[in-house]
């Protein structure tokens, strides 16, 4: 594996290997050893064309725990905001000797472009591109699901997961559908028809417009952020109607099976897609998702770059 551009790039075995590696790394870093020498001498660039402090920090911590040198290259305060192109930025990073570029970009496909254009030689990790994909988010979600519902081992065969919210604009949903399906889970997307992607019928999952019909039969529900501004584009009439029809409140949470967990990739819109009491309930695993994010990203960087360091030696 040279790049991680899409969750579709991962076979079941590759995905399980990443999750297993993340579990091992978590075990090691839990025990006082906060830093491993694995990627010493390698350079990881966080290239963020779009603000996302949480994802950027997660990758930064992951790379540093593996002893990589980290360069944060943000659109703001760099030449990017003055209009330097993706290409010129890439050539600059290549000249700096980047071994991996973690890219967040508002344009769908920008990581593919970076990986296939010949502009750089290093590995490319997609940290979220437009409304396309966010594969490490899906990996951390899978890791979280496995830890809670599958004793932290193997795949997710038979697991029932509902993903609720703005599926149309969600890179998290796209990556999760692909990855969870690869791992054997049974995914149901829930949204008003206006926020369902065109052609969803042919996706490898189910879909429904009725959250109440689905909740009693799932092991986990993943709530997606819904921006209130979407109502200006007539995706739904009002925040109130959205949260009444699709929001997760305590009444709906009570419909979930006893063991089911509540997830959210963050940042949450309390009162919109999720009520405060649900967000703060013990069934909600959002804080743990953040921790798992670091471990999964360590695993991804380790598996992409581990071999490269052998060469360097």
């Amino acid at each position, binding site marked *: 594996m040279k790049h991680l551009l899409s969750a579709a790039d991962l076979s079941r075995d590759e995905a399980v290997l990443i999750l297993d590696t993340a579990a091992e790394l978590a075990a090691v870093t839990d025990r006082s050893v906060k830093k491993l020498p694995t990627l010493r001498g390698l350079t990881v660039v966080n290239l963020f064309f779009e603000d996302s402090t949480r994802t950027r920090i997660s990758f930064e911590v992951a790379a540093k725990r593996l002893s990589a040198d980290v360069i944060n290259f943000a659109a703001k305060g760099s030449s990017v905001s003055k209009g330097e192109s993706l290409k010129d930025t890439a050539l600059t990073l290549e000249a700096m000797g980047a071994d991996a570029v973690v890219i967040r970009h508002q344009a769908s*496909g920008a990581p593919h472009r970076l990986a296939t254009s010949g502009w750089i030689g290093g590995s490319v990790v997609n940290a979220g591109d437009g*409304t396309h994909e966010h594969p490490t988010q899906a990996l951390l979600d899978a890791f979280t699901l496995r830890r809670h519902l599958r004793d932290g081992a193997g795949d997710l065969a038979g697991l029932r997961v509902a993903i609720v919210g703005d599926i149309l604009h969600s890179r998290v949903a796209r990556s999760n559908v692909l990855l969870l399906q690869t791992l054997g889970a049974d995914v149901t997307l829930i949204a008003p028809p206006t926020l369902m992607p065109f052609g*969803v019928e042919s996706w490898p999952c189910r879909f429904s417009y009725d959250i109440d019909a689905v909740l009693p039969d799932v092991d986990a529900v993943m709530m997606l952020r819904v921006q209130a501004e979407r109502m200006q584009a007539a995706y739904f009439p009002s925040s109130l109607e959205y949260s009444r029809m699709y929001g997760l409140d305590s009444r709906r949470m009570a419909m979930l099976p006893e063991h089911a967990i509540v997830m959210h990739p963050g940042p949450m819109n309390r009162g919109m897609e999720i009520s405060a009491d649900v967000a703060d309930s013990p069934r909600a695993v959002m804080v743990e998702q953040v921790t798992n994010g670091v471990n999964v990203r360590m695993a991804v960087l380790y598996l992409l770059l581990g071999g490269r360091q052998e060469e360097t030696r």
Partner: protein
Amino acid sequence: MSATVLRGVRPYGEDPVDIVIADGVIVDLVAPGSGDGEVIDADGLIALPGFVDVHTHLREPGREDAETVRTGSQAAALGGFTCVHAMANTSPVADTAGVVEQVWRLGQEAGLVDVRPVGAVTVGLEGQRMAELGAMAESAARVRMFSDDGKCVHDAVLMRRALEYVKAFDGVVAQHAQEPRLTENAQMNEGELSGRLGLAGWPAVAEEAIIARDVLLAQHVGSRLHVCHVSTAGSVEVVRWAKSKGINVTAEVTPHHLLLTEELVATYDPIYKVNPPLRRAEDVEALRAALADGTIDAIATDHAPHPREDKDCEWAAAAMGMLGLETAFSIALDTMVRPGLLSWRELAQRMSAAPARIGRVATQGHDLVVGAVANIAVVDPSASRVVSGADLASKSSNTPYAGMELPGRVVHTLFAGTPTVRDGALA
């Protein structure tokens, strides 16, 4: 004036003859080897009337870094064209007699093809006020085709008035059919693939709804309508219905919509970014069938040069459009003639006679008969070549066919009797 002889050439792929040309006109068709004059060897090659493009972006004035009237004319001649219609979306926009005359003069100076400026329908392509269509029609450029191409004349009243107004000088409105609200920020054909790639969709209905409205408007006011770059099976159905009702509508299809499909977008390589977008295989099939049965009248290139930096970027930031002039014949051969969908005579209709008629260009699109203006493309259908952007005469290199082996070659082009291309190179 001395005569020129196209020796041993096969008009429309039929029996070989010598075509004798003098004073820019075909003066004789005689047995091979018997024509007198300066000989151009065309033994066994096929002669077709010079191609006419009703949809070309020459970029001058304003974007001379992408193309000029001269380089675009060179590309056209090398593609077997003897006439191109230069779209109005230049800078300044070709919305006045002054600008269309400037483009027309630049075409005359280049002298390789008839450059027929297309006038903008609305001032600045803004869709607000009608441009001075009459002044452009009366100018030295004798504009007959009007289009806001790149943008749709979406205001129904303006479209109606424009359709009516151009009747006074036998003009035509060429509509870029794209409902703007349905295609805000659109990046590719809307379908299962756009959903998967996370690229905002350009739904077929946004094209079809405008065409449906416009054919009904044309019927209501008894005007002539031309539909640019038809790209969907549904649009074909609407045009077919309109023609069955006797509505005066013509339509064009681009070479790329006859060959390429949306799957190419999965590479996220903006070389495949074009407007209207590449569609599904079913659409390609429907377009080929419609061109074969005459529902679509003409092949038009929508030749759209862009400098490297406008394609060397992420998909969303890239410009829309691809080169077409120097590959159009090859694509037509590959998609239409070889599969038996069009005979050579029918291809001549679609690439020369019909577009000349749509643009009301009296000196173009003639059959290869005595007395016709000697606008002639001589082609070798048995040749083939691997396309390379660097080899093209166009100032830009944004061809989606780079690296592909395409059949056929334009060997000679004669423009009003004068060779503009000989042996595949500019004369």
